[in-house]
């Protein structure tokens, strides 16, 4: 598993653990009120589990297993890794801004965080496009 995939998958597991903890607190709060701000954690819960965990895990694994480009004349076997590294930063920055940042900064922070997540998805999509290739004859 390449370094970027390891970072993405580890980050996704951190978001998974965080998102499940928040979800557990929110669910328990429905039974016994724990703390007044707990319902406001919904945005963090959604962003952590949708983008931080699900999307980022898929990206990390895709970077690892999608076809390599060495035989197609690319300098790097995975094409344009800079775009995938940018996606790592954008997605995690976005989740942090939309999640815990949203608790402090409100809607503007959530909007900016979501925009960063979109940039992350676009960057990773641009990285992945050249890797959508059929197998080489005899390869």
């Amino acid at each position, binding site marked *: 598993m390449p370094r970027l995939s390891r970072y993405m998958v580890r980050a996704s597991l*951190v978001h998974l653990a965080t998102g499940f903890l928040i979800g557990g607190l929110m669910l328990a709060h*429905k039974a016994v009120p724990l703390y007044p701000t707990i319902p406001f954690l919904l945005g963090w819960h959604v962003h952590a589990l949708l983008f931080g965990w699900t999307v980022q*895990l898929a990206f990390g694994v895709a970077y690892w297993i999608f076809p390599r480009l060495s035989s197609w004349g690319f300098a790097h076997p995975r094409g344009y890794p800079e775009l995938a590294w940018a996606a790592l930063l954008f997605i995690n920055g976005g989740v942090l801004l939309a999640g815990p940042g949203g608790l402090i900064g409100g809607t503007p922070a959530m909007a900016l965080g979501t925009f960063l997540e979109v940039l992350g998805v676009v960057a990773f999509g641009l990285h992945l496009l050249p890797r959508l290739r059929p197998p080489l004859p005899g390869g």
Partner: protein
Amino acid sequence: MPALTRWCIRAALVNLVVALVFGVGLELGAALLGSGWPGLSAARPVFYHLLMLGGVAQFIFGVAWWMFPPLSRTRPRGPEGLGWVGFGLLNGGLALRAVAEPVAALDPQPWARATLILGALSLTLAGWIFAGLLWPRIRGRPGKEN
């Protein structure tokens, strides 16, 4: 494909079907009773969690358990018993939640609230178990760093 993976994927497919039938029921309920009926908003989180947690996340856990790099030749996937505990907690927690969440919202009886707390604990623990089981398997091969 290991047994835990097979059971995770079977359970994920069941959860997906149940979630989608539940979702159809919610839409029919909204059409017949009006979207403001309190039971609908109380049941909607159950739909989301059956779909995304029981379906999507459980499918991912199953495939990751199978495909992630092995830990060693003798114990390639680590403590499998703990994986089964996570599987039980995830599906048990979802079932508890599916029953107790709408009931607790409409009529907060002590049993429903206690069940909801038990479901919350089960689901949180399941997520942490799966994260903990996969964490040590995130590894590269020496000399392959691209």
